[in-house]
């Protein structure tokens, strides 16, 4: 059975459960600190870092403004290069297209390159229901799959697991799916990577169908780009006879030269490397080299919904580097599962509501999974203003009646602030009542872990008048 986030509790409830897991908190804290440190060093190495970010954000905005034209260009170029382009409105449609393509090859076991979109649409489960066994080949994705677990990070899906947990999963599960882990496997990371190499090598050599995502699709040339570290991507993209790439429509970039911006930003920001060990690009099929059949499935699944949101559409610039979650104080404490989605952290807090809408309680809770500290704004390579989008989504939640108390409270504050006399009276009243309030005003949920700050005896305006008066 493939697990999913279906029916996941809202963020506060899920987060409460996760922060109780000390092992998890320790694993996430250690991993995010390590990546943050490496990223900071390599971003500082570039004196033109801010200029690269400016360009990346502007190129992505150009894509969003001309998306129809760029997608038609992708379709034309990929087709001309021998590929077949499919379009899918939603997850079910994308899963059906991929399942039919795999069934037509007659293969029942396929290999996959890690892809967040295929996680988002639940492709592995859909294939399983059709009798197709899709094996994940990225080390972290394989750890998640073998452990019947869920991803908790967009770059390092098994970031919540430490080495001894991974050792146990490998020792227990590898034999059930192919070559077993070596006898006496220890928790040394090099030994664990070697076990994965041996387990997966027979899958690569035997697989005739591979499924991938893509980091970028170049409209001008119809070229797909996959960035990876281990070589599992190269194996899948090169050794299979049939390659099916499932790609979100927002992954487009206009020109080949635009890659010079994104490829210089991505690895630096994601893993603290100048370039990831392997970047593969391909345009359709090439005679005598790699797959004979190439299918590109372009997927909407809520992206046009996000595109229609004037504030939120900037979330579609995202290149899935994961820096926002690595730097987020909320993510560091809750880990990724609390967000109930394959997209956790700050990007998850905005992207999930934008893709899915705010109709269910779980999704509507996500814009509140933030302290609005803005650390994510600072590290984002495409300059997504997370805090702007979070606030706008909170307003949409309140307007939609999901938070009636917040709406009423903010309404009252707004009305009072619009009337100076009323405001003055309210502030003065607060100063008088302040000392009478208990340190922990009983508001269920809110005051469990929070003390009320002291209310000043006088307002700033009064203090200013008094002090300026003395000086004059």
């Amino acid at each position, binding site marked *: 059975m493939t697990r999913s986030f279906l029916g996941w509790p809202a963020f506060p409830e899920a987060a409460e459960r996760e922060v109780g897991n000390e092992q998890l908190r320790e694993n996430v804290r*250690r991993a995010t600190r390590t990546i943050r440190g490496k990223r900071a060093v390599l971003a500082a190495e570039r004196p033109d870092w801010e200029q690269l970010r400016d360009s990346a954000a502007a*190129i992505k905005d150009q894509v969003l403004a001309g998306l129809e034209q760029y997608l038609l260009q992708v379709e034309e170029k990929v087709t001309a290069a021998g590929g077949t382009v499919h379009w899918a409105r939603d997850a079910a449609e994308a899963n059906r297209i991929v399942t039919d393509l795999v069934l037509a090859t007659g293969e029942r076991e396929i290999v996959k390159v890690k892809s967040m979109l295929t996680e988002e649409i639940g492709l592995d489960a859909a294939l399983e229901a059709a009798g197709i066994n899709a094996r994940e080949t990225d080390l972290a994705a394989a750890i998640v799959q073998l452990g019947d677990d869920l991803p908790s990070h967009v770059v390092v899906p098994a970031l919540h697991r430490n080495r001894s947990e991974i050792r146990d999963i490998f020792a227990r599960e590898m034999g059930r799916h192919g070559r077993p882990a070596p006898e006496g496997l220890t928790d040394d990371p090099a030994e*664990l990577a070697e076990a994965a190499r041996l387990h997966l090598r027979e899958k690569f050599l035997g697989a005739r169908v591979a499924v991938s995502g893509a980091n970028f699709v170049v409209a001008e040339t119809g070229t797909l780009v996959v960035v990876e570290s281990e070589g599992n991507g*190269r194996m899948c993209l*090169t050794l299979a006879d049939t390659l099916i790439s499932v790609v979100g429509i927002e992954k487009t970039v206009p020109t080949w030269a635009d890659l010079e911006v994104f490829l210089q930003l991505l690895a630096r920001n994601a893993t603290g490397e100048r370039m990831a*060990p392997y970047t593969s*690009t391909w345009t359709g099929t090439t005679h005598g080299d790699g797959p004979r059949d190439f299918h590109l499935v372009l997927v909407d699944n809520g992206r046009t919904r996000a595109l229609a949101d004037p504030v939120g559409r900037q979330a579609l610039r995202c290149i899935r580097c994961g820096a926002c979650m690595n730097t987020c104080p909320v993510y560091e404490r809750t880990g990724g599962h609390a967000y109930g989605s394959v997209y956790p952290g700050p990007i998850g807090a905005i992207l999930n509501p934008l893709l899915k809408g705010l109709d269910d309680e779980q999704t509507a809770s996500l814009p509140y999974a933030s302290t609005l500290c803005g650390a994510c704004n600072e590290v984002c390579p495409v300059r997504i203003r997370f805090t702007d989008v979070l606030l706008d989504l909170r307003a949409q939640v309140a307007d939609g009646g999901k938070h009636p108390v917040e709406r009423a409270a903010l309404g009252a504050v707004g009305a009072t602030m619009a009337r100076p006399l009323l405001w003055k009276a309210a502030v003065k009243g607060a100063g008088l009542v302040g000392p009478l309030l208990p340190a922990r005003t009983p508001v269920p949920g809110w005051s469990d872990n929070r003390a009320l700050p002291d209310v000043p005896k006088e307002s700033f305006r009064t203090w200013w008048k008094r002090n300026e008066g003395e000086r004059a």
Partner: protein
Amino acid sequence: MTAAAREEILRRIRAAAVPPAPEPPRHYLRHAPGVPDEDRPAVLALFAERLEEYGAEVLRADRPGPAVARALAEHGARSLVVPDGLPAEWTADWDGEVRTDRPPLGKAGLDATDAVLTGCAAAVADSGTLVLDGGPAQGRRAATLLPDLHVCVVRAEQVRSALPGALARLDPARPLTFVSGPSATADIEMIRVKGVHGPRRLAVVLLD
């Protein structure tokens, strides 16, 4: 079905009515910081430094034969696959078994070969990157993937200071592989482990 989906997605995009975006600025560097392309010794020194930083071995030489033989011997390679048309001079100083990839060796044959020797299409000093495009002396992608040692011969003039200079010289119609150091992972506690599925060892012969 896919035609209806296509129309529907394009209609939704139009309905989103995204306003036009300004032309993107391009004020970033086109070379590695402090290393312009014209400063050839600095470009080559940076290339070697970055390769070594990521665990690749660099052999600077004035002709390929002896350096290739040394790299293969150091790693104990006994069999070598080479793309069809590789200059014979490159393997002239080595006495191990050379398997030419014509007719193409099967996956199992490649997997059972110790090393692969190729040239490249371009290289990037800033990130220590080699780019293969399947052109002369490079062969198909599978051949540089399955053997555990990759020896790559780079001519000095192929090395650009930074990525923009290299991308401009590459043909996107060809299947390209950018290699920046040997295969690696940091998926276990963010500890870098060299060598997962791709070649675990990378040796670069840099011809000055």
